[in-house]
């Protein structure tokens, strides 16, 4: 990987708002053409990180470079190469879609026929052809999102920074905006923040997970979902004494914990078994049969991104992935 390949690089990035810490000691990098998700719960520092990376906020300490430009000393250069979609897509509601694009294009030194041609292209690309003369005030949230994306890509930026691009829009529009973002990946280096983990898995090669303003995981999403490949979780419905069942399961060496849930409408009791090992399911069934418990069903949950993310969010200490 050459220096030119690293499009976003942060090192010990820290930002305080007065006494309140937003991010501290954040270090990660994104290479050219990569699509990376910045994951984290609300207040984890995603928006602050993005605002620093697009030259809007200066860091309190540490450094960040975008396309080789330092965000503090070369903020204007950073802003030239970045296309930014802020959270909640703030737009001038008294302008039409076309006038908005023309305004932001002019601020980006685009002029004349080149600007008009590019406006036509991005309007076509984001599917706003029928709305180009409509006031933004009259657009639905989904179409405003598209307008925000059109503004972000208007100058064909090397780096796209998208802050929660599908938040607060309906499922149909979410799918459409995701398709749009997918069409942009590859041509641009994309950093997008989300707390919808399925979105990260669908759109991104890699995720950087933030917690309390620090990086708790950084790696391919497949690695994060398989955070503990040996950890398994099995839900068993039984007919019989659940206390006896729990006691017999607790004696199985590969089982680390057993939780019981009260039966609903006099149905079978449910036991959730967490453990590890290739033969966990087999060991559990044998132990229950030997205890004389009738098994109604056995379901093993696959480790999901959500589960891995919750594990990370609850983890007391940070860790690094591949």
């Amino acid at each position, binding site marked *: 990987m050459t220096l030119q390949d690293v499009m976003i690089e942060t090192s010990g990035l820290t930002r305080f*708002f007065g006494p309140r810490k937003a991010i501290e000691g954040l270090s990660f990098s994104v290479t050219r053409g990569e699509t990376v998700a910045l994951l984290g719960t609300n207040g984890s520092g995603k928006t602050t990180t993005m*605002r620093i990376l*697009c*030259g*809007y*906020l*200066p860091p309190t300490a540490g450094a960040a470079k975008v396309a080789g430009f330092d965000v503090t000393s070369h903020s*204007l250069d950073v*802003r*030239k190469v*970045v296309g*930014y979609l*802020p959270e*909640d897509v*703030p*737009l*001038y*509601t*008294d*302008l039409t879609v076309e006038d908005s694009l023309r*305004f*932001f294009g*002019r*601020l*980006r*030194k685009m002029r004349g026929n080149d600007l008009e041609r590019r406006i036509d292209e991005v309007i076509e690309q984001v599917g706003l052809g029928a709305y180009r003369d409509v006031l933004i005030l009259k657009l639905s949230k989904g179409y405003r999102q598209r307008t925000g994306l059109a*503004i972000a890509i208007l100058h064909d930026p090397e780096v796209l920074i998208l802050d929660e691009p599908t938040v607060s829009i309906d499922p149909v529009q979410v799918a459409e905006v995701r398709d749009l973002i997918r069409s942009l990946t590859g041509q641009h280096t994309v950093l997008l923040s989300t707390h919808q983990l399925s979105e990260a898995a669908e759109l991104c090669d890699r995720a950087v997970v933030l917690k309390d303003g620090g990086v708790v995981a950084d790696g391919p999403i497949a690695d994060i979902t398989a955070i503990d490949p040996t950890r398994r979780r099995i839900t068993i419905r039984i007919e019989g004494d659940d206390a006896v069942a729990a006691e017999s399961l607790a004696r199985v060496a590969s089982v680390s914990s057993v939780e019981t849930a009260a039966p609903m409408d006099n149905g079978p009791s449910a036991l959730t078994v967490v453990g590890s090992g290739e033969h966990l399911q087999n060991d559990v069934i044998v132990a229950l049969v030997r205890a004389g418990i009738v098994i109604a069903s056995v379901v093993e949950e696959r480790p999901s991104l959500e589960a891995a993310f919750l594990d990370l969010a609850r983890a007391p200490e940070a860790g690094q992935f591949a």
Partner: protein
Amino acid sequence: MRNVLTLAQKEARAYYASPMAYVVGAVFLALAGHFLVSGLSAPVPEASLREMLTPLAFAIILWGPIATMRLLAEEQKMGTLELLMTTPIKEWEIVLGKFLALIAMFLGIVIPTFIYVGLIAWYGNPDTGPLFTGYLGLLLYGGAAASLGLFTSSLSSNQIIAGATSAVALLFLTLADQAADVVAGAPSVLLRSLSLPGHYNGFVAGVIDISDVSYFVTFIAFFLLLTTLSLETRRWR
């Protein structure tokens, strides 16, 4: 400079697309007409706009806050300032662009009063010097109100607070002359030197005093600089 003009054009278009522009313009023109008629109804009327231009400065207390309060406060509230400041535009370009738009808006309400100049010229023989200097003074007064209002608009994301702060400050600077009459010594001198009408009345009388010009130019530059600093320091807050 192109960014300044792009932003000024957008702001001026937005202003003239709103009904508020026409309401404010109509009120300003009506007040100007009222002052003119009052002046011409005097026992010995003068063929000048002095009687109109002098009190018209008070109408700027109304115009300034209304025109300026939304310019930066609304951008902060709606979040569009974030979008704007992530384009390659400098803070001073934003401030100057908005100021130029305000001057265009002010000219939009002042230029219709030229009809009164036409009337005076039709029925009398006015001295053109004081007419020219009077309008120059009015433009500087409007510029001062615009720069002050732009600054207060940068301090808050609440338009009402921004507008009220600007109105109170303008009222103080407009009445400082009267306040100077009731105190003595250094406070009186200070109040008189701060007074907007105190530096404006010379223009209406047909006198261009370099100290009055300096006052208005310094006033405008000072508040535009403060607004730029306010936007710059906003990144650190």
